[in-house]
């Protein structure tokens, strides 16, 4: 298991999160902590509770029980589908959200974000005319406008081609390198293995594993005589052995 950030040093601490929709329990007593600059991947099968957990952390919906160490305003949120206005230009979108976030100098922050995302030459283009990859960069830039200590991304690479993914992760990794804690959900376990410092495995609302990809592989290999040779196989076997 990877060293887990203690409550004191954690940039984000989650304790006992529980959420139910009627009879169906979407999250069951989930607790974890993430250190500053740490990249945490949340993986699991469909309906595992990944999006529910991220939306509770983002403050979009309240939990039935449990707590999050940071207020929603301190957390940057990047939804799966770009939450920006297609009729506004890139710069207009960034300026609007910067003003709504009440950042001190909206124009300076927008210029900085345009530079960081490499969208300076597309600043005046309507978002509706951008490619999926560029739209996702705008989406992430909006999440980072207020320079939040924690950034949440819900399946950020779902609709991107390999080249766009590469650019996306270099951008996200750069944000983490600057000290931003990044928590992202993904279906792509290889992406989690490649970019995340730590993976959280969720299934049926339960947190089954928290550690590095190598630790997950090691856990599965130790349990099986003919252990899996890659992380994806290890992940599938891990879930299978636990009845998921």
């Amino acid at each position: 298991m990877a060293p887990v950030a203690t409550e004191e040093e954690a940039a984000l601490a989650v304790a006992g999160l529980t959420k139910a929709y009627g009879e169906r329990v979407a999250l069951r007593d989930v607790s974890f902590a993430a250190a500053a600059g740490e990249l945490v991947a949340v993986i699991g099968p469909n309906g595992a509770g990944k999006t529910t957990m991220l939306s509770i952390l983002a403050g979009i919906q309240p939990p039935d029980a449990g707590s999050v160490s940071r207020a929603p305003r301190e957390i940057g949120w990047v939804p799966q589908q770009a939450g920006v206005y297609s009729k506004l230009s890139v710069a207009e979108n960034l300026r609007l959200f910067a003003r709504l976030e009440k950042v001190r100098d909206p124009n300076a922050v927008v210029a900085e974000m345009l530079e960081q995302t490499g969208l300076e030459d597309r600043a005046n283009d309507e978002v509706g005319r951008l490619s999926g990859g560029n739209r996702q960069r705008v989406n992430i830039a909006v999440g980072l406008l207020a320079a939040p200590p924690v950034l949440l991304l819900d399946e950020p690479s779902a609709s991107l081609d390999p080249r766009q993914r590469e650019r996306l992760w270099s951008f996200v990794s750069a944000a983490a390198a600057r000290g931003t804690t990044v928590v992202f959900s993904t279906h792509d376990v290889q992406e989690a293995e490649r970019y995340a410092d730590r993976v959280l495995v969720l299934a049926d609302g339960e947190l089954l594993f928290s550690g590095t990809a190598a630790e997950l592989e090691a856990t599965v290999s130790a349990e099986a005589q003919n252990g899996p040779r890659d992380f994806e196989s290890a992940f599938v076997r891990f879930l299978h052995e636990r009845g998921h």
Partner: protein
Amino acid sequence: MRWLLLKDLQILRRSPLLVALLIVYPIMIALLIGAALSRGPSNPSIALVNQIPKQQRTFDLGGSNVNANEYLPQLSRSVDLVSASSRADAVRLVREGKVLAAVVLPTDIVGRLSSGRDQPKIDVIYNGEDPVKQRFVESVVKARLADANDALSKKYEQITIRYIDTLLDGGSIAAFGRQVPILGLRNSKKILDGVIATLPPRSRASLALQQVDSFATLAVDNLGVSTDVLRSVGEPIAVHQTLIGGRRTALDAYAIAIAATVSLMFLTVLLAAGLLALEREEHAFSRLVRGLVSRLGLLAEKIGLAALCSVAVTLLLLLVLGIFFVDLDLSRAPQWVVALGVGGIAFAALGVAIGGLAREVRAASLLAFLLSLPIAFLALVPSGAVSGWLSDAIRVVCAAFPFKPTLQALDIAVNAAPTSLGPPLLHLAALAAAYTLIARLALRRFA
């Protein structure tokens, strides 16, 4: 909220086709409804076959010359008369749909009218292939014939009253081509009274003449009131109108209020529903409500913007109508703004409720149309035009939507009614609060 408002205006500015449609469509619908209500149908075309020989169109009735042509205008009132040369020509015109019906005045109509005994008959031909059209033609022809009958009976009444006056006071009447002097009952009575005074009382001649004198007195008294009786027979029922509730508003002025309400409704409901649904369709809603703006604040922004835009457009519509087309009291413009403003807010609240429930722009627009049209039509059904329970149901439905109270408020504001604006404005405020609550509840599952 200011930035959201500016953002929505910016989006609207970049969608000129949508904005043009949003403005032009409701105004066109409103003007069409207003025009249809105020002007009614155009005159129907009726063919007329006049078979009365020209030399016979004037006839003698009790010594008076009556010209049958004088009564044709009664037939042609509210209809466009098309002259037909023969009955066959009239049948052809009806069959080809060039006229709704044909009226044939037969050759013997004058003879029957002047005889005063045989009732004249006219021939009406119409096409029965369309029941609605058939009913319309029947009612138009009956109404026009009733007018002609009324004019003729007035002429008969005048002639009869003149006869009675001659019988009472004396004079002359035309008979067999010459004037015949008539003594008159009152003069006869005077002569009798003079003769009786010269005879010995209780003589046989005096007693006999006194009987004739009594009859003459009775005849004078009774014939004296017969003119009033004749007038009441000519118009047995007089109409006295008493207005209960509401007030008298010219149909044109009421149509203006309807046109403005329809325009306000479509523009506001569509705009508010679309603007809210757009937040979800652009996936921005979840981003906004996590601390950037409250859900209620978001609703208030959409309601305010939709109401502001639609009130401006509808106010402009009223001003253009008032300045160039109809006689509106422009000094009442502040009352217009109040009625439009409160009505606009209520419609916008309905719009955000629709947008919140539908969650997609297309679905929200469709739902807004599907709901608005029947609500407007139901509100225009006159009370008493449908059966009791249906009328009650319509009243309840109309009370649950802002169209009727907005129409009432605008009618009061535009048409200078003595009624207070208070009740419809309070009604609208209650509806606005209720629909905002529904929209707020719908936002729970909006993200």
